[in-house]
């Protein structure tokens, strides 16, 4: 069955200058109850991989360098 990739704006933004995933940090990846964040293996920075957010905020609160910002998803903003 043919498929397409739809673009969506995701609610979680990572400040790549502040993110220390390149030093081995995975705190946000571990704290997400829905397992939506991942580390980009080329950039070595965290990013939102799946748009399935509950905007619950553990990723933002637990980040040791305050690199994460969670916005309300556009559909309900």
């Amino acid at each position, binding site marked *: 069955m043919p498929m397409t990739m739809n673009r969506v704006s995701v609610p979680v933004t990572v400040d790549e200058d502040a993110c220390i995933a390149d030093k081995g940090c995975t705190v946000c990846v571990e704290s*997400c*109850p*829905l397992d939506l964040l991942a580390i980009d293996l080329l950039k070595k920075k965290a990013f939102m991989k799946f748009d399935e957010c509950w905007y619950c905020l553990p990723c933002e609160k637990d980040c040791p360098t305050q690199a994460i910002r969670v916005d309300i998803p556009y559909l309900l903003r």
Partner: protein
Amino acid sequence: MSDVIAEVDVLVIGGGTAGPMAAVKAKEKNPKLKVMLLEKANVKRSGAISMGMDGLNNAVIPGHATPEQYVKEITVANDGIVNQKTVMAYAQESFNMINQLDRWGVKFEKDETGDYAVKKVHHIGTYVLPMPEGHHMKKVLYRQLKKARVEITNRYMATRLLLDENGAIAGAMVLDTREGTFGVIRAKSVVLCTGAAGRLGLPSSGYLFGTYENPTNAGDGYALAYHAGAELSGIECYQINPLIKDYNGPSCAYVTGPFGGYTANSKGERFIECDYWSGQMMMEFYKELEGGNGPVFLKMNHLAEETIGTIEHILHTNERPSRGRFHEGRHLDYRQGMVEMHISEIGLCSGHSASGVWVDEHAATTVPGLYAAGDLACVPHNYMLGAFVYGQFAGQSAADYAQSHELPAVDAAQVEVERKRVLAPLSNPDGLPPAQVEYKLRRFVNDYLQPPKVTKKMEIGLDRFAEIRADLAYMSAANPHELMRAMEVHFILDCAEMAARASLYRTESRWGLYHYRVEHPEKDDADWFCHAQLKKNDAGEMTCFKRPVDPYIVELDDEEKDAYNRLRVVKQAEAA
């Protein structure tokens, strides 16, 4: 057998609220037992209280309330259909649990003398205890898990329970959600603590994960219990909550009520006497929402500045702290405007209503070796404190059962069937994406199951669900994460079918909006003063049957019986 990844005495599935308590209490009961806590996310931040909780909704504290009063209140709020023994068991243990949590470091609001500062929100009694610093709840639980030496297994989901040849518990079959591999955990007893079926209806925003409940709670435990042959109860008594329009946080009359906030219509007038969530209250809410004075609002703009500041601090730092951001985006300040409210999508949840897996006062289900606690266990209106208390009962019961039973043999045939079902989407590269199947399924849930419940609509819904069931085999998963979502779609579909069949079975109206059958608008105590149970029969079909309500242990006065039917504010007729 190569599939077996662990052998334990007690397996607790779900590490949110009830689960950690069950695991700790099983270990305390018998420290020699091997107790494993299995969690789909990470127990540090999982479940309905990942960001904590702003208060206890049902604290039974001496001097403010008695267990007998509480049992009466819940019996009336749940329209009489209550196994009072289960509610009484909770009520009697409620105060001990609060004291234990207090010792563990949970901060409750206290008055100047050091007593718990309980507030009145319910129609009859006084049970609400605020936790303005409740955001640390998961940390408190995690410390106890470590102290009790519970084995924690994160990022695994249970897909089916494993049974022995007599239909008793033998363990669970699981999926590693990071690796996409299948495995078996052998266990003597299992405790289900997987929370509500929160991803059943589709929020009106259309955003799949914008649900009231944490959307990771897809109804896993309802489906696990059902396929293991357990009885479920009151599934037709849906969870429907008053929420902030578009935002999935509760309108929080529990927080704002004691400060003077209230639910109002568009004229700013109060229309319900009591903001405690019940089906009867939701019916009045629904009528006002759809009527000429709608929509409905949460009104706080009449309160003093310092009061509003306190409310903001509680609401914007606990439970659903992103709500402050939502209001900011809509340019709403509690000081000026009223908060527009709406009705949530439907779900199954005993923590808020009464839809759940049937348990007795020891948290035992009808399957030997299987226990349940928290939002999915049918003890009406149990909320967070009830999850802790029943988590304790379940952990202790499961420890006793494990102590007196051997580890059952693994039935290779069950494992083989399940391995095929679970891994199928990985070998289907051109199949249906799970998110598309889920969207369609949940849109049908809204179209056909949402109250007011209409017989023909629910029957059409069942036809659509059967078609989607045929589609399940064609789902495709591109990675382990999508495979987890695909298996959740199976759970959601099971819950949707249960919701339709249980609702069709009870041919009367009860619990206000939760079970409003348009063709049967009246309550019919002659035929339906009973629990409606649902289970998988020996032929593998979904069946419903009646279970009588056990004789009450606390009798109700006639005046009390009717209390929740008189929630609408009565206006004095104006003189002509």
